């Protein structure tokens, strides 16, 4: 007869050990109930297989801990990553577009470009009733100033938003680099532990968490290797993480593949997202900007609003992106003010016999004719009227300055009410000296009449032939639709993320009720096992006392 007392004691000891492990695991689950990315774990028990006893039957050898399982579903985790990327991208886009659209508010309480344009033309019309009135002239100057300041502030807000988006791209890319390098380190730890037969649960939790974070920044594909490490690559096949090595992306305004990067809206330069194959001294940059812009995540969202530059682009308005599209519309209005409106302001050529020179036929209360950029001017140190007809502001004059935008430089030529050229020459005509009557409002009426005239508004890839008012309405409509779309996309992706997260939490999350129920069960089993030791010990005592 075999010694079953020893077996009783052994089984009880093993059971206590096993249940200690169970309780410890439950404790760990409870402890991590709020830990982001934590997947609950289950301790798997199995009956202990011992050496066969001599005899016909075998009383079992108790229980032992077989393994520890992380309760995760790869599919659910991937769908969380994917919808997290969509959500982060649209959220970013929507945040920026909300700030853009507030510049084009419809409440009527703010000095928008549209309301300033209408007031400006109204003031011109009013001045034409009584052109020598200093009050009406001041009012016209004020409305002109309002228009200039609304254009400047709208444009500079757009430029600031673009700069902010650009800075955030740089920040996001450095976060991406830090995430990928941590993933590479975790890959090493996981493969080391798992090739030796263990399960690197904690490391996997942390890696899943990092992958989720990475998914909210950029879109990528991952492939888990046999040793437990994951390889991460972008949609064009560029590898970010391979086993224990990661490649850092860079951001640069001077990439090796594009020698002439156009300025950004604010005058700086936009960052390209690159990988440098060469050295910093001799960079061989690979452009990944468009690849990332086409994907999802906050980087893509930022690039969609900020815009990306093409290799042949020379102007900031050629970049795609919602902010650039709106800035182009503002800039197009500015350029028409500087050319067409100024041209009308100069009046017809007094001396048609010299077509190369434009002799203005409009004049102010002091009897002077305005300069080429007579009503609207821009800050520039060089020669402003350098091409085409001398004395006439033309689009080619603007191009010749080499300036990229005029909206941030716009100003009124003069804020002196007397210097507003409301009159046109009332002399017998050239060569008689020009005479400007104080009560003549024909020139200012010609400016007012421009409100109903069509112009071709263009800047960068934007071009539209319409009136000033309609050009602004189109801009409102454009930003409105963009923002409304981003809003819908954000809501949809947010719902999708919620659903995906719910499903993952349903599967992998910790339920305290469940854990406590398990705890009671496990504690009972532990207590029972302890009782078995007492029973075994009693049996031994009986035997010993019988001797």
């Amino acid at each position, binding site marked *: 007869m075999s010694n079953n007392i020893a077996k009783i004691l052994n089984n009880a000891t093993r059971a206590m050990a096993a249940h200690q492990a169970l309780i410890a695991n439950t404790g760990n689950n409870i402890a991590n*109930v709020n830990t982001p990315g934590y997947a609950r774990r289950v301790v798997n028990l199995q009956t202990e297989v011992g050496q066969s006893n001599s005899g016909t039957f075998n009383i079992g050898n108790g229980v032992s801990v077989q393994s520890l399982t992380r309760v995760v579903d790869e599919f659910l985790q991937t769908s969380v990553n994917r919808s997290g990327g969509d959500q982060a991208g649209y959220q970013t886009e929507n945040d920026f577009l*909300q700030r853009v*659209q507030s510049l*084009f*508010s*419809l*409440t009527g309480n703010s000095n928008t470009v*549209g*309301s300033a*344009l*209408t*007031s400006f*033309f*109204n003031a011109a*019309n*009013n001045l*034409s*009733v*009584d*052109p*020598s*009135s200093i009050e009406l002239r001041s009012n016209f100057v004020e409305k002109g100033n309002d228009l200039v300041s609304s254009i400047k502030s709208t444009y500079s807000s757009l430029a600031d938003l673009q700069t902010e988006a650009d800075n955030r791209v740089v920040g996001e890319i450095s976060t991406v680099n830090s995430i990928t390098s941590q993933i590479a380190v975790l890959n090493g730890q996981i493969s080391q532990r798992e090739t030796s037969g263990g399960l690197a649960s904690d490391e996997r939790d942390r890696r899943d968490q990092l992958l989720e974070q990475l998914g909210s920044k950029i879109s990528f594909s991952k492939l888990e290797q046999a040793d437990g490490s994951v390889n991460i690559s972008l949609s064009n096949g560029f590898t970010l993480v391979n086993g224990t090595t990661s490649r850092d992306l860079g951001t640069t305004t001077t990439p090796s593949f594009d020698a002439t990067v156009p300025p950004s809206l604010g005058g700086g330069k936009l960052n390209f997202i690159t990988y440098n194959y060469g050295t910093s001294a001799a960079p061989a940059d690979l452009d990944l900007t468009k690849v990332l812009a086409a994907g999802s995540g906050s980087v893509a969202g930022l690039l969609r609003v900020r815009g990306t530059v093409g290799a042949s682009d020379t102007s900031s308005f050629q970049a795609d992106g919602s902010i650039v599209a709106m800035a182009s519309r503002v800039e197009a209005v500015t350029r028409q003010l500087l050319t067409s409106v100024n041209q009308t302001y100069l009046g017809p050529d007094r001396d048609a016999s010299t077509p190369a020179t434009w002799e203005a036929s409009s004049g102010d209360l002091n009897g002077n004719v305005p300069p080429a950029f007579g009503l609207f001017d821009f800050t520039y140190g060089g020669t402003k009227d350098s091409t085409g007809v001398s004395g006439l502001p033309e689009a080619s004059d603007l191009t010749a300055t080499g300036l990229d935008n005029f909206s941030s430089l716009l100003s009124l030529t003069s804020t002196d009410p007397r210097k507003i050229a409301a009159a046109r020459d*009332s*002399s*017998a005509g050239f060569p008689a000296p020009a*005479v400007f*009557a*104080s*009560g*003549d409002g024909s020139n200012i*009426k010609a400016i*007012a009449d421009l*409100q*109903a005239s069509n112009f071709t508004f263009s800047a960068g890839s934007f071009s539209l032939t319409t009136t000033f*008012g309609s050009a*602004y*309405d*189109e801009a*409102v*409509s454009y*930003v*409105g*639709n963009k*923002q*409304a779309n981003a809003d819908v996309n954000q809501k949809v992706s947010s719902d999708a993320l*919620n659903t995906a*997260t*719910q499903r993952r*939490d*349903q*599967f*992998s*999350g*910790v*339920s*305290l*009720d*469940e854990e*406590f129920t398990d705890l*009671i069960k496990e504690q009972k089993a532990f207590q029972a096992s302890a009782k078995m030791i007492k029973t075994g010990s009693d049996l031994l005592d009986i035997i010993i006392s019988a001797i």
Partner: protein
Amino acid sequence: MTRISENQMIRSMVSQMLANQQTVNKYSQEVTTGLKVQNPGDSRLSGTISQFREMESRISGHQDRIKTVQGLLTFQDGVVSQVNDALVRAQELATQGANETLDPAHRALISDEVMALRDHIVSLANSTYQGRYIFGGNDDGTPPYTAQTYTNPPTGPESQRYTYNTSLAAGQTRTVNVTDDTSITVNTPGSTVFDNSIQALERLGRSLSGYATNPASGTPDGTGSAYTFPAQYTTQTQDIKATIDLLNNARETDVLPEQSSIAGRLARLSSANDVLTQNMNSAKDVLGRLQDADITQSASDLTLAQSALQASLTVTTRLMQQKGVMDYI
């Protein structure tokens, strides 16, 4: 069996609560601003809204301008009607003066009143509106009529000859926009209204006080000698009689047509204003439908959203307080 984990429950409660808070915020903004569309993204028709808002402010600009132009034209109407009255009075005086029962000394007495009428018309022609000469054409900074002199007599009102400003600008008029596609002339060069009246009165006054005016017809050139009585008494009478027709002509061809032209322009302004008011109403109507919040609707939506938020807060609190297995151990 569906597992509900701790995080899942909290996440869903929080997201529900935030969604409800957003709805409350949206409706409370609608109620406080009275607008359901505040930013372009709030409506797919924001371009149209912007267009109508612009139209609204353009129309209101036109309406304000119409008021100014109405003031200006009404003032001119008053001036021209005073000229008309003066001319009627002058015709009476001319008829009286032409009576051959009067001797030159009596005629000279009538002349005083005639010259006073002339000065009155000159001052009307030189009248200013808001500090600017309204009958000076585009030359509104200098008086349209300035005094020259006749060679005879050397002094007195009869020696003064009033001529209209000769600058080109004085002959020009000003047109202004009063609607998007209507413009209206707001002034008339004084020469077309006053020249003939002033000249006729000068001729009459000079004749009555005993001076001929050269040339016998047309614009006086500043010369003219004293009649010799009694030889030229008949010439004096004929000259006085001739001015009756001149005064009549001046009234019928210059003053009355100007009066009716001003009346016509005032009528056009008022009909333009009616059209603008109509357009303004329809713009307001469209904006009302597209942009304004239906306050009753928004207020009831707000109440509903507040109840939903309240409910989600209550549910959240209840669930947080709900006892779990832990509480029974």
